[in-house]
């Protein structure tokens, strides 16, 4: 384990735990931003520069802002009167611990845990990614475009006021 990996891992995990346990929803959204930034640093460390910057643009730039807007629109920024955890929280934590136990056991016992030689640094330039997107992956690209358009229109229609619909 190298030192940069350890620093990024600790920062990411700690901010993810903070995002899930803090009381104030705005603080949760801000810690979530740190988690997303840590993941972007992981991508940069793994030589996936384009994905790292796309992560910063999409998650920190758009999703985190969207979450803050939703928090402010639903009066979630007021401190809750009751507990922040739902009634059956012990079962949820138990399920999560069991899932982590199974996953970590599988990872550590598999052949992936053995040290092996790492392939040389691949060239994943924006030119190559754009070339692939326009040739081999052009159909998924079009489908994602249609999906984003449909999601945009759907989100606007869902969030519209429903007073008109209630009138006979």
């Amino acid at each position: 384990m190298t030192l940069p990996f350890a620093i990024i891992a600790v920062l990411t995990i700690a901010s993810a735990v903070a995002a899930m346990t803090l009381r104030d929803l705005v603080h949760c959204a801000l810690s979530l931003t740190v988690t997303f930034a840590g993941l972007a640093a992981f991508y940069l460390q793994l030589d996936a520069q384009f994905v790292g910057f796309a992560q910063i643009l999409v998650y920190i730039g758009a999703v985190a802002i969207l979450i803050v807007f939703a928090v402010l629109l639903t009066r979630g920024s007021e401190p809750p009167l009751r507990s922040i955890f739902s009634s059956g929280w012990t079962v949820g934590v138990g399920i999560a611990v069991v899932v982590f136990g199974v996953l970590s056991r599988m990872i550590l016992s598999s052949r992936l845990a053995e040290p092996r030689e790492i392939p040389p640094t691949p060239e994943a330039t924006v030119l190559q990614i754009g070339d692939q997107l326009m040739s081999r992956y052009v159909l998924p690209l079009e489908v994602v475009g249609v999906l984003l358009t449909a999601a945009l229109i759907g989100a606007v229609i869902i969030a519209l006021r429903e007073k008109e619909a209630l009138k006979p």
Partner: protein
Amino acid sequence: MTPLSQYLLVSALLFTIGLAGALTRRNAIMVLIGIELMLNAANLNFIAFWRYGPNPQALTGIMFVIFSIGVAAAEAAVGLALIISIYRHYQTANVDDITSMKG
């Protein structure tokens, strides 16, 4: 360089934190944040396997993550619109209080 299994362990831990948050938090926005964390853990796995796989020149992992980020953005937009709509209807975003479909 860091071995692959440590990236996988960090990703498993992130997934677990997101799962625990989605299952235990009372506010619907926090449930959505937990789901986003789980999606991000999966993306980290894709990139790690791409980098340590036998043929990273094929760019398959990167392509999958780019499309996954696009789908996750659409999911976040629709999910938050649903939460705002539910809040307008019930005046609460608390998943324990929205029980009108409970038998």
